[in-house]
């Protein structure tokens, strides 16, 4: 019975965490955005849909 309770609690924690991260878009914000964002040099390569930091 204890194992079942532990599995249920862990499952709910994982589900809640995923729900929170999904709803608030955790991890989806581009790394080169944010207040005070500044240019920090150039990688000099042709972009292929990825972030290019100049």
């Amino acid at each position, binding site marked *: 019975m204890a194992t079942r309770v532990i599995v249920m609690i862990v499952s709910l924690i994982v589900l809640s965490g995923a729900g929170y991260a*999904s709803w608030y878009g955790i991890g989806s914000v581009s790394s080169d*955005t944010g207040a005070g964002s500044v240019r920090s040099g150039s990688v000099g390569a042709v972009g292929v849909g990825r972030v290019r930091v100049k």
Partner: protein
Amino acid sequence: MTGHVSSIDCTNCGAGLQVLGGGRVTTQVCGYCGARLDASDAYRVLSIHAGMQRPDSPFRLGQTGEIDGVSFTIIGTLGLVERWKGREWRWVDHILYSPTHGYGWLTVEDGHILWTRKVRDWPTGAFLTAQSVESAESRPTRIWRAEQYTYYATSAWEVDFVEGEFTWRPERGQRGSTVSMMPSGRASRMLAFSDGAEREVEVTRYCPEAADAFGVPAPAAKGVHPLQPYVPKDGKSFYAVWFAAMTAAALCMALWVVATSGNPRTLFEGAPTDLPSALSFEVDTTTRPVRLQFYQSLSQAWAEYDVTLTDPAGVLLADTGRGISYYFGGVGEDAWTEGSRYADLTFAPTTPGTYRIEMALADGEQAAARSTLRLTVQDGMGASLWSWAVAGLFAMAFLWTMSSRKRHSMARWKGSDWTEEDD
């Protein structure tokens, strides 16, 4: 103790030995000195196996217990070993005797207990030997008592320990082979073609209850035995329902996140050279990120854009760039593409209001200046990937739970030495 019990003194070392095995016993091996005695000739010494190491088994000579409602007494013990390619498998056979039902075998193999009886009604077809298996082009089968048995494995065994009474003359180092077969369905019985001192066909079943019947502690079973019936673990139904529910909840969550994202709004569509010096868009809520997506219908070309984004208060949120490139080639299976016609910039809005984006073509091929560029904005963006991933995780847990019977069956047949050869 049942049946007539008598005893003798070992004619080699003088130790007292019980005589329990009935009239068909021909050989008695002293457990103290290893002397093989001829039971049909005043127990004269045939040979002496000194220094034998007793194999691990909870059963001992003279113990009595009931199997299938019949009382049996353990009269002999054989330690057997199979060696192949540097590996070694050991098991213990105990010969049992009942005055009313004759002889049988109790085997302890990797902690699993098996019960074996000789059968007189042999299966249809020729006696299966290791040689006939070796030359067979397909996995051998036999019909026995209206059930089809499929080849499982061949065991080339060697006697490593011997003690007690036997109906033949076993000795250390004696070799033989056994070909075993099982029905392909649920675990039930194993049919064995034993080719040793004499040819016999035996049937074996899983018999864990023998430990209780003989009043010995049940040995710790290792792994899954080929004859071991499938027994669902406690809570299987609960876990299956729980993980199914968790999967459904995570899927609903992922769909909800997608469904509640704002609609994409087009800010600009046209040639990059027609881009205005600045574009603006409204953001109503700051709880979820906003995505700016760039699409350009490039073919064999690339372009790079400078992008500057400021919030309603004039705070710089991004001073960066985005590149778009798309190349392709080849035909059929050799077709390839590289790059993407899409790029995006996702940011966390700081305050509701009007955001401003400045965007200009910084570099690129000439074709890029003529290809249509589309810029869209979409607020209320979540990251449904988390929910999809967790749904996948719970789905795997569900499938793992539900596949326990199949996994058990695969584990039972894992030890089969039959391999289909590719022509």
